[in-house]
């Protein structure tokens, strides 16, 4: 690594940290109904949304109705997206004449985009029409991210309410997230990206004669508008097959910087919003710090692994699956960010990363997508770990655990454990099935320990709603489309429902005022405890599987073993 590499990394994290309070404060104003500068621009659209949908924005609901509205809304999106795929051939805006999508692939993709996972078993440029990409995928990119924000907003209200069961209005949270946060940022980012060379048009695919006289067909389409929201909404589903490694999706190092920043921007800024909303900015920065420490730790290990010599390749930099314009540093920085943030877009192929760098990406996902994590989802996942940490600390000092003045009791801890265990159950059980069944093994592109890593990564990605892949695995089969689809549903709603139940239960409780005996949750001691709990839970759950995959591969690689 050169000084220049370090400089780029420092610049990236400086920009992220500087934008956190700026955007965080704006979102605070949006979600607490205060005046903000987007109101004159899109305020009329908010009223129009309520009018067109028959919503009374003043009506607040308890956690059960809030959850019910959320589930029905997501179910409608799922069914709609499934239908337009299986009937794609009859629908307009299909200049490449792509046929109807198979039912199992359509199911997988519909679940994938509705759950903010954006796992892709298909190749965009040869599978989906412009119609499906826009009307189906772009829309779910927005509303799945907005759904994540709605859940964290309900949880915050539960934490700050004084004995009230009202958690807000799901439709209002959904609308404000989309109109004031996601839409303006997406317009800004997509226009800037086109300025760098990302395509945005409705042309049919261009056939060109190359300099050597061969024929090359260049895919086109409204890519930039989808890429902007797939980065900002921690979605990650590429317009083209190779995602942000494709020069039409990510043409320059500067577009790369912006797209990478967009991955972490909203999850990071929301920690500040959180602090403001619960009445203590310090609480927000505490969580931000814990997330940043975990991210930087993973990044250091990945960089070390990628810059260490691989004896099998004459100690040269491992450029397989990486683009020249990004080089090693920007590929590793992206891989770490996208796996931490539940985004899942890639600018380098994770399958070809060195074993330890691939493992860091996998661990980031396995820990529950809480290192910044998905839009909204990362923070509510982190609060789950906060609840467990407060509970353990309470056991140690022998006091009833409290968080932000709310008593943490048996019900909250039970729900938190469900939210932690369900995704992990998906990863381990499905990986085990795939590893011993011919349907699972027939998809492998690599053998030896790396083959296990491909399977393990796939189910981690599904359960964590990440969407990135060790993409050699051929997952566009009935077996993988169905199991991964089910995994994504459990990974999403197996966390959302317990979180909303916690929100409902906490909202009903009174706030106990701080006393000298209160265990503080806004200092370095707490950050240390929180990180320990996260690593112990994640480590104990996944170390055995990881040791058979990437860890043993790393050791064998250094002994010149190949498969």
């Amino acid at each position, binding site marked *: 690594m050169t000084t220049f590499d370090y400089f780029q990394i420092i610049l990236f994290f400086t920009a992220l940290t500087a934008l956190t309070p700026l955007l965080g404060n704006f979102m605070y104003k949006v979600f607490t109904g205060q005046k903000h500068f987007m109101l004159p621009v899109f305020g009329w659209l908010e009223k129009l949304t309520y009018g067109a949908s028959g919503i009374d924005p003043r009506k607040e609901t308890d956690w059960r109705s809030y959850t019910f509205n959320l589930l029905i809304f997501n179910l409608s999106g799922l069914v709609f997206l499934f239908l337009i795929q299986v009937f794609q051939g009859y629908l307009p805006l299909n200049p490449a004449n792509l046929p109807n999508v198979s039912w199992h692939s359509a199911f997988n993709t519909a679940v994938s985009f509705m759950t903010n996972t954006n796992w892709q078993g298909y190749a965009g440029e040869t599978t989906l029409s412009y119609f499906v990409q826009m009307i189906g995928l772009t829309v779910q990119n*927005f509303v799945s991210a907005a759904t994540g924000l709605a859940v964290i907003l309900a949880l915050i209200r539960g934490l700050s309410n004084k004995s009230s069961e009202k958690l807000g209005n799901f*439709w209002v949270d959904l609308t404000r997230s989309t109109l004031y946060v996601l839409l303006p940022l997406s317009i800004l980012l997509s226009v800037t990206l086109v300025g760098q060379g990302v395509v*945005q048009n409705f042309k049919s695919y261009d056939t060109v004669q190359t300099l050597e006289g061969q024929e090359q067909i260049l895919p086109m389409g409204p890519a930039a508008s989808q890429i902007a929201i797939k980065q900002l909404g921690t979605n990650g589903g590429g317009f083209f097959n190779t995602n942000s490694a494709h020069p039409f999706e990510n043409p320059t190092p500067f577009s790369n910087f912006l797209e990478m920043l967009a991955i972490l921007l909203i999850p990071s800024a929301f920690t500040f919003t959180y602090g403001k909303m619960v009445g203590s900015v310090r609480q927000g920065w505490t969580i931000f710090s814990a997330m940043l420490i975990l991210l930087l730790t993973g990044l250091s290990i990945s960089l070390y692994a990628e810059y260490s010599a691989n004896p099998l390749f004459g100690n040269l930099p491992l450029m397989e699956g990486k683009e020249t314009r990004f080089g090693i540093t920007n590929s590793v920085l992206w891989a770490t960010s996208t796996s931490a943030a539940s985004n899942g877009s890639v600018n380098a192929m994770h*399958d070809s990363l060195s074993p330890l760098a691939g493992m860091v990406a996998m661990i980031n996902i396995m820990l529950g997508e809480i290192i910044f994590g998905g839009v909204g989802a990362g923070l509510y996942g982190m609060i789950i770990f906060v609840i467990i940490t407060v509970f353990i600390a309470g056991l140690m000092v022998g006091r009833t655990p409290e968080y932000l003045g709310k008593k943490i009791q048996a019900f909250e801890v039970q729900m938190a454990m469900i939210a932690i265990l369900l995704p992990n159950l998906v990863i381990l059980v499905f990986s085990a099935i795939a590893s011993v069944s011919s349907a699972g093994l027939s998809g492998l592109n690599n053998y030896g320990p*790396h083959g296990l890593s491909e399977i393990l990564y796939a189910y981690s990605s599904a359960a964590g709603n990440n969407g990135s892949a060790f993409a050699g695995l051929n997952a566009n089969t009935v077996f993988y489309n169905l199991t991964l689809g089910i995994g994504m549903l459990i990974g999403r709603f197996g966390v959302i429902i317990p979180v909303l139940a916690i929100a409902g239960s906490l909202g009903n409780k009174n706030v106990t005022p701080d006393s000298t005996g209160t265990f503080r949750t806004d200092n370095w001691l707490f950050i240390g405890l929180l990180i320990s709990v996260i690593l112990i839970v994640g480590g104990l759950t996944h170390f055995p599987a990881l040791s058979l995959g990437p860890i043993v591969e790393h050791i064998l690689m250094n002994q010149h073993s*190949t498969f």
Partner: protein
Amino acid sequence: MKTLITSIRILLFFTVLTGVVYPLLVTVIVQLAFKDKANGSLIIKDNKVIGSELIGQQFDSTIYFSSRPSAISYNPLPSGASNYGPTNLKLINAFNERKTDFIRVNRLNSRSEIPSEMLLASASGLDPHISPKAAFLQVNRIAIARHFNSIQRSMLNETIEKLTEKPQFLIFGEERINVLNLNIVLDKLSFSDHSKY
């Protein structure tokens, strides 16, 4: 039932707003502001589109600079990578084979250090760039194949230096050179129809 109707209504509203209005609005803005880029940064030569500046092309002939290896032979439908892991025997064999070939074709010393992007396939399969070092290593072979005199040879070296892109704004990314642009200039440098080679 009421929830379902509300869901469908708001979903339709957002479908129109974020699925139709938003992409169209962005398209209108960028077709006015960055028309060429929005349409794929196409390169036109003699009134014919010969490619996109952003999408790499396959160069097999010895009279052109070679691009990086590609898992899809630069056929963009669909883009793709090998996805071979770091202990995959197929990858190691391909690596060694490409190394031998590169040394042989470019008449290099068998112990020359070759930039690894010339031996390993890119992520998109469409990487338009190589490092300047990888370009310089090919100059000798191309000069021989095109019967360049010493003036043309030094002009070719200058061209590589001139076309080398520094990190963007001096901060972002890596130093690189666009192979298609380089080969277009190379054709001009030959002062003659290259079909005779």
